């Protein structure tokens, strides 16, 4: 395959920056000419995928557009119509498909997302809060100078800092940040367990076209993409979802059931997700967390479920088993290679240590962002079929224990064995631990594509 031109691809696509603070601006374009001028001025700010072989930059900037945003930038109608249906509709109109009902339904979203006004996402990441503020000011000046967009709202997010160091923990206490797929040409080296499974049991990177438009994908073709090619190539689609976390409810539930479950509270917490709260995969270490596994990238994602068909180590319905089944469906894992997504994002809201009082109504959660070449085949499929439903995991209508919209009626089975510390256990009446507060689908163009948009040079074909 051809070598990737990293200077043409926005850095946000290729790298998890690991910068601990972020601010996301949501823009609205009034006038197409001024908006295009804004994008032209922003071009020099956009962080590309070029590697930082020295130090990290102080801050990064990236931009993405909703379909209505592209329309307001006056891309030709014929071009706009070649974008996938789900992107044209926007995430709000896909609520039925995504299971965004009940507490997740759009009527309950923040007004920013309820109204169909967001045209662009402008993401700034910073090494320090000061760097973040400085870059934000610089960007805001560009916005002022061009009059190219109004700011509908912004969202801050930040990694949890423990002992002065940023971590990858989220509010429920789990260490996140594992399991982003490896793609051909994107990573320098492949981490076992992150790509696709080969028949001999080793792992290989996924086809580039699962992440980036314009490249061959896992189905052995260059998939249908918006036209013209130059607009779409080296771009991708981004899902943005603000997921509120009901921390008080979660802690209470875990305390209650942790006291009843013979394996103890931490093990139960591990059974929900499939990793102990420090990140150790429960498939590799059934009885306790093990930092020697977590800190070794050759081990931390290197496992399969072939020897755990009944779910006695990692439950059939555990979160990571649902969203990355590996070999659990048989066929050497080939049924799942086109269902992978790359996750970015950070937590938001105040962190509260275990034991201190906390309320569900406080603003906290995770800004979930996913990148994929095809929204309906990748993100939407996982959300609909593997999170809000369970047939592929042979669990009928059962939903993901932590992300499912249970409405108080959910059930989660922890498959067990004849062992005093690993018995079968069932959690009933699962509440909604997570609530969707809004979001949308965005198109993250390449640098070339941004230039074309800025100059109004997009022709359909």
């Amino acid at each position, binding site marked *: 395959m051809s070598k990737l031109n990293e200077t043409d691809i926005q850095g946000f696509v290729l790298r998890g920056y690991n910068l601990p603070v972020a601010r996301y601006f949501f823009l609205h374009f009034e006038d197409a000419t001024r908006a295009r001028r804004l994008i032209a001025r922003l071009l020099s700010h956009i962080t590309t995928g070029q590697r930082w072989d020295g130090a990290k930059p102080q801050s990064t900037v990236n931009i993405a557009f909703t379909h209505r945003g592209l329309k307001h930038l006056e891309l030709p109608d014929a071009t706009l119509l070649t974008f996938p249906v789900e992107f044209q509709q926007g995430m709000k109109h*896909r609520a039925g*498909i995504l299971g965004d009902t009940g507490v997740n339904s759009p009527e309950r979203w923040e007004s920013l997302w309820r109204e169909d006004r967001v045209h662009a996402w402008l993401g700034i990441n910073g090494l320090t809060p000061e760097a973040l503020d400085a870059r934000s000011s610089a960007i805001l000046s560009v916005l002022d100078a061009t009059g190219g967009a109004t700011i509908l709202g912004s969202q801050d997010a930040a990694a949890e800092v423990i002992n002065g160091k940023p971590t990858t923990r989220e509010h429920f206490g789990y260490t996140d940040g594992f399991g982003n797929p490896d793609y051909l040409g994107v990573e320098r080296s492949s981490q076992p367990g992150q790509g696709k499974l080969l028949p001999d049991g080793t792992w290989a990177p996924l086809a580039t076209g699962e992440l980036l438009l314009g490249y061959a994908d896992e*189905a052995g073709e260059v998939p249908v993409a918006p036209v013209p090619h130059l607009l779409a190539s080296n771009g991708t689609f981004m899902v943005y979802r603000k997921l509120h976390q009901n921390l008080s409810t979660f802690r209470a539930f875990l305390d209650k059931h942790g006291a009843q479950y013979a394996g103890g509270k931490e093990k139960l917490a591990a059974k929900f997700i499939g990793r102990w709260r420090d990140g150790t995969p429960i498939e590799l270490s059934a009885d306790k967390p093990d930092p020697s596994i977590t800190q070794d990238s050759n081990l931390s994602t290197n496992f399969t479920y072939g020897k755990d068909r*009944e779910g006695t180590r990692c439950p059939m319905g555990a979160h990571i088993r649902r969203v990355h089944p590996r070999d659990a469906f048989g066929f050497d894992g*080939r049924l799942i290679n086109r269902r992978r997504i790359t996750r970015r994002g950070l937590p938001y809201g105040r962190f509260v240590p275990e034991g201190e009082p906390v309320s569900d109504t406080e603003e906290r959660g995770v800004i979930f962002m996913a990148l994929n070449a095809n929204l309906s085949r990748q993100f939407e499929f996982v959300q*609909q079929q593997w999170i809000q439903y369970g*047939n592929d995991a*042979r669990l009928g209508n*059962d939903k993901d224990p932590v992300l499912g919209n249970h409405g108080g009626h959910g059930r989660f*089975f922890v498959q067990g064995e004849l062992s005093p510390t690993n018995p079968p256990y069932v959690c009933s009446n699962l509440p909604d631990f997570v609530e969707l507060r809004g979001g949308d689908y965005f198109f993250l163009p390449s640098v070339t594509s941004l230039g074309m948009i800025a100059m109004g040079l997009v022709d359909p074909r």
Partner: protein
Amino acid sequence: MSNINGKVYAMNAITPMKPWKTWILRVFFFLLGHIKPMQKDLVDLSFIEFARWVVLPRNGFPFLGKGQSQEDLKYDYLLFFSNFNGTWNQYIDAFSAVLSKGLNLVWRWSEKFPGSVPVTLFKEYIARVQFDTDYYYTAYPHATANDVKSAHIVQSSLDCLSQAAEHYNPQQFADAYLRFVLQVQAHLGETGEAPVAG
């Protein structure tokens, strides 16, 4: 008209075949029917409830006289009827990903079949040769093939336990009950509505 009822989708497809190719297909189906390991992949792709292929020779269309005009056709036809769980895209993606050789052995004898890989052309072909269901009935719309298989496991485990339970003292019963739970613990998903197809 609906192709969908509850969790199951009714697909109908018809493809033309040059008659000299039809006997090759019959041989393949004969083998498939008699060599069980060949069916393993179909069984493992556990989202098909029932599926059938019907070879309809060109003079095989029912002719009852009584004013009906007799058919005069050049091609034999292959009819395909599937009852599967999941969405149309999901179904075809899965087959293309893991059963492409088998699919090719069935459909390569049909005119203009593009091959089951890559998937986009394959889906276009299916869309062209698929025709829609007018009326679709299932006795268990809330259950998939997986749900049904699990249900039978639960029923048979329960029958065993309830038969034996009469003879147990409470402690023996508790032990037997635990073993029963272990047998059924991966088979207790709820049944109900299907996800919205969109």
